[in-house]
């Protein structure tokens, strides 16, 4: 079988971009799960809100992509923190299945409201002028915006890893994950840290939403199927390690891209099939601890 390098590298790039979104989303899920013991089903809906936020900023206030890249994650993050303070907080001490059910309900509400006002079709969001066009790399044509998404996501993922694994704040965070009572005894405001953590995780989802707006269009249901794939990514990688989430996210994106080239019929199931294989061979996930 002859390999068309041009087509293969194009699919690999699509895979890398999906991988960036998987990494950003599963990273957020892992951070939230660590602190709140909740699987945030609303993650896909909040990702969608990030994209819509960028759309509103552009069409309502005339603010371009670059301010949106900062404002949207902060706005959605604040929205998330309000959700945490008003609702998720009350689930402390209950079985974590209730957190899943509550956030599932929130996802339905958010997606339903957006569907009512915007239908199910996509709204266009233009690529910012500075990132238009492409480069000819010899073996492939690289649209600049797509390259930017991959590199920027990678940087954000690594910064998050650094924040959690290498800074003082991150040390508090990891300590509070292990033993919140003891950390509170040291005079650290753990409830506030929990709220901020949820805001951080949600902000990462919203950032992924802004990044995807020019590629995938802005749709009310853009996050609903994505979140299920991200769940499979999380099951494969395990939620025990930040770096694990990043690596798993990107690798699965690449594998999906390769599948799109070699066996397109399986491209939307390959992640789930891999999940099954990993569960059969290594039930605890590739990097996770057994639960």
């Amino acid at each position, binding site marked *: 079988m002859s390999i068309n390098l041009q087509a293969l590298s194009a699919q690999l790039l699509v895979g890398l971009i999906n991988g960036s979104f998987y990494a950003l989303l599963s990273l957020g899920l892992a951070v939230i*799960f660590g602190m709140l013991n909740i*699987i945030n089903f609303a993650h896909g809906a909040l990702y969608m809100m990030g994209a819509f936020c960028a759309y509103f900023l552009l069409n309502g206030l005339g603010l371009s992509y670059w301010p949106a890249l900062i404002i949207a994650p902060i706005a959605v993050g604040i929205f998330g923190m309000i959700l945490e303070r008003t*609702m998720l907080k*009350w*689930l402390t*001490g*209950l*079985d*974590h*299945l*209730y957190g*899943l*059910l*509550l956030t*599932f*309900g*929130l*996802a*339905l*509400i*958010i*997606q*339903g*409201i957006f*569907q*009512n006002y915007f239908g199910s079709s996509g709204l266009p969001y233009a690529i910012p002028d500075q990132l238009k066009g492409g480069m000819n790399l010899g073996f492939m044509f690289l649209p600049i915006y797509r390259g930017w998404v991959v590199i920027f996501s990678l940087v954000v993922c690594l910064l998050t890893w650094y924040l959690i694994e290498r800074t003082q704040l991150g040390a508090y965070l990891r300590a509070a994950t292990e033993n919140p009572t003891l950390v509170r005894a040291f005079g650290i405001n753990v409830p506030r840290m929990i709220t901020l953590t949820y805001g951080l995780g949600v902000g990462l989802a919203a950032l992924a939403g802004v990044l995807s707006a020019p590629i995938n269009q802005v749709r009310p249901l853009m996050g609903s*199927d994505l979140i*299920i*794939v991200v*769940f*499979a990514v*999380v*099951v494969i990688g395990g939620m025990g390690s930040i770096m694990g989430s990043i690596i798993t996210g990107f690798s699965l994106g690449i594998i999906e891209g390769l599948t799109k080239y070699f066996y397109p*019929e399986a491209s*939307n*199931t390959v992640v*789930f*099939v891999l*999940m*099954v294989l990993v*569960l*059969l061979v290594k*039930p*605890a996930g590739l990097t996770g601890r057994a*639960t």
Partner: protein
Amino acid sequence: MSALTDDSIPTARRSYSDEMVAFVLMTALLVVVPFTGVYPFFVMQGLCFALLACAFNLLVGYGGLLSFGHAMFLGTAGYFTAHALKVWGVSPELGIIVGILGAAGLAVITGLIAIRRLGIYFAMITLALSQLVYFIYLQTPFTHGEDGIQGIPQGKMFGIFDLSQPTTLYYVILIGFLLGFLLIYRAINSPFGEVLKSIRENEQRAISLGYKTDQYKLLAYILSGTLAGFAGSLKVFVAQNASLTDVHWTMSGEIVLMTLVGGLGTVFGPVVGAFVIIAMQQYLAGFGQWVTVIQGLVFVVCVLTFRRGIIGELAHYFRRSL
């Protein structure tokens, strides 16, 4: 620890007399429905979903395992039954058996994979598996993709009962529901059910007492999936179609919602919850996506303030076992 260990699940001693009275009342009510002028299609649909929710409740309410993919059994049995009836032209009873076998087979395969992880992972794995099943049905030719299998002949049950007669169909569906319901009731009151509840409360202790908890969980999962498939097969005769809607994750969410509204771990809760949600969808049908928003709100309100569900709250208030 993965069990739903908090105050929302009834743990008090069961009173069989309460449950018997409630069962007789429920059956009497359902038997007279065709004479009351209530739209029979609505009640039949409600019965199918009630059986589905009861089957789901067996797993989550008694085993503490939250499956977020139960729609795959509903849809699989629906497709299998529909295909057998329409393409192979088999009799209704055989069609139901084909559907149940399909769901049971799927339950064995997915069960062996899903029970490898607990609690929160179990929910995510079942959701991902059902999405995998959804994509398979989207692509295989026999399901006819987006169109689904339509115009399914209802036929004559055992060669005698003409299922195209609404009243006959109603009683066949009712008997199917009652059979499934009693089987679940028998299961939760058997030694098997007791071990299942002990796993829900404290799996480590059940293991230390010598129970092979994985086998119990797998059996509960297969039983639950098979009965959910039975509901899916029955639904084919009511709706006369089998479509992707029944395999989609939104359907799995609705099953969870029905059980949560009625009361997790209660005997009659899922039945009440199914009728409440079906009625709600019926009345709000003209409001487009607001139905989704309202369902979401019901989820949020239930989880925050109403974790026992309708029947659970009633049972708690009157100190009865329902």
